[in-house]
C-alpha cells in the first residue's frame, strides 16, 4: 500500500489544466465525472422545481396556479429531466469517477469520446428546455410520447425529438466507454469475478443501454417521419398502428427502469458491507442476480400496456415473467440482510441512505408485483397507485443510492469529510419527506384518482394535501445536500486515506484525495489481491 501511495503523490503526476479549457477539453475521467454529477444536480433541481409546481397545483381541488396544458407540460418535462437529465447522468458521473479507480485503470478507455458524450447533454437539455418558450408550449403528452397525442404537439415536437436523439447518442457512447474500459483495462490479476459490485452492475447496465437506447431512437425517428414526412408507422388513418409504438417504446422503457436501478444495487452492495464490517454475503449470486434481472427486463415490456388488449396467453406470459423478477431481486435483498446479520453496524449517512433504500425500494418492488397481476392492473392502470410505485423505486431507490454513493466517496474525491450531523439531518428530512409525499399516493390510486390531471374530485383532497406537504419537505431538504457538499469541499475536516475503516477495493488503496492521475502504473498483483474480492 505504501508503494502505491508514493507512486501517486508525485507532483508531476498531478499537473492539471486550468480555467475553462480544463472543463471544455476535459479528458480526465475525474473531471468528466464531476461535470456529469454537477449537471445531474442542476437537472435534479430543475426537475424538482417542476415537481413542486405539480404538487402546488394539486395541493387542493380546483385550478390554482397553472392552466391544464402547462400542468401536462410539467409532468412530461419533469419525467424527461429526472430520468435522462438527473438520474442517468448521475450514474454516468459515478461510473466515470469510480470504474477506473476500482479496476486499477489510469482513465476511461476512450477519453475523447467521454468528453463528447458529456458535452452532448447540455445541448440536448437546452433544446428540451427551450420548448417551454415555443408556440404551443413544451411537450405535454407524457414522457412516453404515445401517438397520436404526441404527434399533435406544436413547435416543441422536433426540438424534443432531436433532444432525445442527442441524449440517446450520449448514453450509448458513455455505455460503450464503460464496457470497453472494463473489458480491456482491468489491472493484471483482476478477473471479472474479482471486480467490485459497482463495476459489475455498471457493466450490465452498459450492455442494456447499448441494446435499448437505439430502440428508443428508432421509435422517435419514426414519430418524426410520421409528423413531417407523411409516413404512417403509428397513424391509424394511414394504415399504421399506434399500439406498435407502445410495444417498441416499452421494449426500451422497461430495461430503462433497470438502467436506472442496477447501479444503485452496486452502490448499496459496496456500502452495506463497509458499515457492517463484514464481506458482502453471496458476491457471485449478486452478480448472477443482476444479470438475470437484466435478461428478464427484455421479456416483460407488455406489462406496461395490459389495458390495450392482448391475447390471454400474452397476458399470462407477461404477468408471470414480470413476477419472476422478484426471484433475483429477492436474492439481492436477502444477501444485503445476511451481510448485516451479526455485523458490527454503524449508522453513518451513506449507511442510513442505503438502509432506507433497502426498505423503501422493497416497498416499490412489492407494489410492482401488485401491478404485475393482470386483473388488478386493470384497476390500478393510469392511477396514482402507479405514480406511487415508480416513485418509490426511483426516489428512495435510485436517488437515495446516488446520494449514498456521493456521501460514501466524497472524502476520497475531495480529501475532505462532510459534516455528519447535517448529513444525518438531510437523511431524516429526505426520508420523512419522501414517505409523506409518496405513500398517500397509494391510497389515492386505490381510491381511483387518475394520474396526469391538474384537478380532482374533493374525495381525494386530504391525501393530496398531505402528499404536497411531503413534496415541499423533500424538495427543500435537498438544499441541505448541496450545502453539505459545498461545506465539505470548502472547509471540511481533512479525510484520512481510508475514511471508512472497513472499506475494501482498489479505490481505497489510493491516497486521499484521489490524485488527478491515478493508477498510471497498474497496481501490483499484491495490491489487487488485497483490494479486491477473492474467492
Amino acid at each position, binding site marked *: 500500500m505504501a508503494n502505491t501511495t508514493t507512486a501517486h503523490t508525485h507532483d508531476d503526476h498531478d499537473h492539471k489544466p486550468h480555467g475553462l479549457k480544463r472543463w471544455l477539453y476535459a479528458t480526465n475521467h475525474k473531471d468528466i465525472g464531476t461535470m456529469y454529477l454537477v449537471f445531474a444536480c442542476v437537472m435534479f433541481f430543475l426537475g424538482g422545481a417542476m415537481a413542486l409546481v405539480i404538487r402546488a397545483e394539486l395541493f387542493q381541488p380546483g385550478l390554482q396556479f397553472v392552466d391544464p396544458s402547462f400542468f401536462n407540460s410539467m409532468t412530461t418535462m419533469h419525467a424527461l429531466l429526472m430520468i435522462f437529465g438527473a438520474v442517468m447522468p448521475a450514474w454516468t458521473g459515478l461510473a466515470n469517477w469510480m470504474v477506473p479507480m476500482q479496476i486499477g485503470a489510469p482513465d476511461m*478507455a*476512450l477519453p475523447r*469520446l467521454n468528453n463528447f458524450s458529456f458535452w452532448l447533454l447540455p445541448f440536448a437539455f437546452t433544446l428540451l428546455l427551450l420548448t417551454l418558450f415555443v408556440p404551443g408550449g413544451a411537450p405535454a403528452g407524457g414522457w412516453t410520447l404515445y401517438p397520436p397525442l404526441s404527434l399533435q404537439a406544436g413547435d416543441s415536437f422536433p426540438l424534443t425529438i432531436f433532444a432525445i436523439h442527442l441524449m440517446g447518442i450520449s448514453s*450509448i457512447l458513455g*455505455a*460503450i*466507454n464503460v*464496457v*470497453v474500459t472494463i*473489458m*480491456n*483495462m482491468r489491472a493484471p490479476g483482476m478477473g471479472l469475478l474479482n471486480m467490485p459490485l459497482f463495476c459489475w452492475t455498471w457493466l450490465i447496465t452498459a450492455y442494456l443501454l*447499448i*441494446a*435499448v*437506447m*437505439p*430502440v428508443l*431512437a*428508432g*421509435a422517435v*425517428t*419514426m414519430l418524426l417521419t410520421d409528423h413531417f414526412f407523411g409516413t*404512417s*408507422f403509428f397513424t391509424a388513418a394511414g*394504415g*399504421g*398502428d399506434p399500439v*406498435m409504438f407502445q410495444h*417498441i417504446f416499452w*421494449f426500451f422503457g422497461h430495461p430503462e427502469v433497470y438502467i436506472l436501478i442496477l447501479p444503485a444495487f452496486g452502490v448499496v452492495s459496496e456500502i452495506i458491507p463497509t458499515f457492517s464490517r463484514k464481506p458482502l454475503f453471496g458476491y457471485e449470486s449478486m452478480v448472477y442476480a443482476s444479470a438475470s434481472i437484466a435478461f428478464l427486463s427484455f421479456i416483460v415490456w407488455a406489462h406496461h400496456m395490459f389495458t390495450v388488449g392482448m391475447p390471454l396467453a400474452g397476458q399470462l406470459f407477461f404477468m408471470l415473467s414480470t413476477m419472476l423478477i422478484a426471484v433475483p431481486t429477492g436474492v439481492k435483498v436477502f444477501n444485503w440482510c445476511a451481510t448485516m446479520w451479526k455485523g458490527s453496524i454503524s449508522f453513518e449517512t451513506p449507511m442510513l441512505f442505503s438502509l432506507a433504500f433497502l426498505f423503501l425500494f422493497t416497498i416499490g418492488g412489492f407494489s410492482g408485483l401488485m401491478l404485475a397481476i393482470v386483473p388488478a392492473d386493470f384497476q390500478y392502470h393510469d392511477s396514482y397507485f402507479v405514480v406511487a410505485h415508480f416513485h418509490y423505486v426511483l426516489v428512495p431507490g435510485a436517488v437515495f443510492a446516488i446520494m449514498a454513493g456521493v456521501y460514501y466517496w466524497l472524502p476520497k474525491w475531495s480529501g475532505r469529510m462532510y459534516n455528519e450531523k447535517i448529513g444525518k439531518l438531510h437523511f431524516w428530512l429526505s426520508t420523512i419527506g419522501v414517505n409523506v409525499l409518496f405513500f398517500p399516493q397509494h391510497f389515492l390510486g386505490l381510491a381511483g384518482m387518475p394520474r396526469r390531471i391538474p384537478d380532482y374530485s374533493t374525495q381525494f383532497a386530504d391525501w393530496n394535501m398531505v402528499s404536497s406537504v411531503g413534496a415541499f419537505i423533500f424538495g427543500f431538504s435537498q438544499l441541505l445536500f448541496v450545502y453539505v457538499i459545498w461545506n465539505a469541499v470548502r472547509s471540511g475536516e481533512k479525510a484520512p486515506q481510508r475514511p471508512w475503516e472497513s472499506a475494501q477495493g482498489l479505490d481505497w488503496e489510493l491516497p486521499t484525495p484521489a490524485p488527478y492521475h491515478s493508477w498510471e*502504473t*497498474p497496481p501490483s498483483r499484491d495490491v489487487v489481491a488485497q483490494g479486491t474480492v477473492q474467492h
Partner: protein
Amino acid sequence: MEPKADKLEQSRRVKRSAIVLGLVAFAFYLAFILMSVLGFRQ
C-alpha cells in the same frame, strides 16, 4: 510499466471492441425501424 507492444495491443483491442459495440447499437436502431416497416406493409 507495461511493455510498448502490450500497450499497442490494448489500444487495438479497445478500438476493435468499441467499433463492434457501436455497430451492435446501430444494428438495433435499424432493425427496429425495419421491423416496423415490414409490419406496416403487412
